[in-house]
């Protein structure tokens, strides 16, 4: 299982990175392959390239604002949630994402 995702919050200095951390910890715990891009106030970091996206089984977009490059994921199953959920409800969120791959 490989999961990629993007996190982005309005201010782009705290929630964005907390969400990334929560997701990474949860995905690591389950032994999945993962890569989470952040789109904070510095722009995109840890950017997902074409290979990352090609191999991904499902995409998690934990974003509360408009993001760049969403068309990269055309044709992939996408789970779109507000950024807060990735922090407060990480485990259920990942469960939902896994369900989308079936």
């Amino acid at each position, binding site marked *: 299982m490989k999961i990629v995702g993007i996190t982005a919050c*309005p*201010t*782009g*200095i*705290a*929630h964005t990175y*907390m969400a990334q951390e929560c997701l990474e910890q949860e995905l690591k715990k389950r032994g999945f392959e993962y890569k989470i891009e952040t789109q904070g*106030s510095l722009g995109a970091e840890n950017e997902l390239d074409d290979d990352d996206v090609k191999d991904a089984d499902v995409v998690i977009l934990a974003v*509360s*604002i*408009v993001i760049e490059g969403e068309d990269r994921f055309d044709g992939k199953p996408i789970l779109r949630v507000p950024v*807060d959920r990735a*922090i*407060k409800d990480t485990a259920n969120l990942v469960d939902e994402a896994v369900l989308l791959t079936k």
Partner: protein
Amino acid sequence: MKNFLKDVQKHLLSGVSFMMPVIVAGGVILAISLLGANQTATGLVPQPGIMTYLNQLGKAGMTMMIPVFSAYIAYSVAGRPGLTPGFILGFITNSTVSVGGVDVKAGFLGALVLGLMAGYMAQWIKGWKIAKNPTIRSIMPILIIPIFTVLVLGLFYYFIIATPFSWLMNALTSFMATLNGTNKIAFATFMGVFAEIDFGGPVTKSVSMFTLALINEGVLEPNGIFRVLVSVPPIGIFLGTLIAKNKFTKEERENAKAVGIIGCLGITEGAIPYAVKDPKAVYPATILGGITAALIAAFGNVTCPVPHGGFIVLPVVGNKLWFVAAILIGSLVTALVLKFLKKPVSQEEVSA
């Protein structure tokens, strides 16, 4: 309908997100330019030379914030085609224009509404059947969408919404500018309860949007209160871990140091894990601390010209002593309520 409102909220937050650095740059430079300015009948006049240049730079930033706001609302709705109408319409709503011989300026509210309309209109035009025609397709984004959206919505602004929005904005501004007595206490209490109820989440951002709108109109007190409040929950929790060691685990106490530091830098989010873990103690504590801080800030007429809070903006706030006192006393109240309400954790967790 619920989804639509959720989308709208996302678009507005996107606009705020892009506007934020613009106001920070404008507000800080403007505030610096007013150091040592002369008090005259028409307001503060900066010193000649470099201070005057800084003043102009700062004002340019504050003028740009509204067009950037509406442009990126439209961008969030429609992507690139939203930018042109968003910028132009935002600029016009924030300029004083003569409509039928009366000067009107719809300001922030007008920009918010027109930004959304510009986005949805651009999005709608993108979907026209004629837009799929290969020859027309190429001229859609550079000719048809920009001209059509600006023309239609621009005239719509002049003829339909300019005047009522201008009234609304004026009423709001003069109400906020003349707040005193009971109204002021009620307003401060309201801010204390709600401004940080979700620690930097959507409610906070809505309050922030409202205080930013008032900055644009030159009313700085509501933002002053708000920027005090962003620091109260995190610093309060940090102080709480100091005075009630037996009620926090070792991990919580360690983390609280970082939470306190970023709280001083005006970031509230560090409080979230504590609130999630023990809402029954943390919410009453931060709300009571918030009310205290808001009342002190309101009483001391604390003002803030930039959209950021905590001690980091101290150089540019007005009534600095009150600002510091409001944060410290509010945080202390939060800490004391925490000490009172939190249950002790087991001995192993305290030391482990």
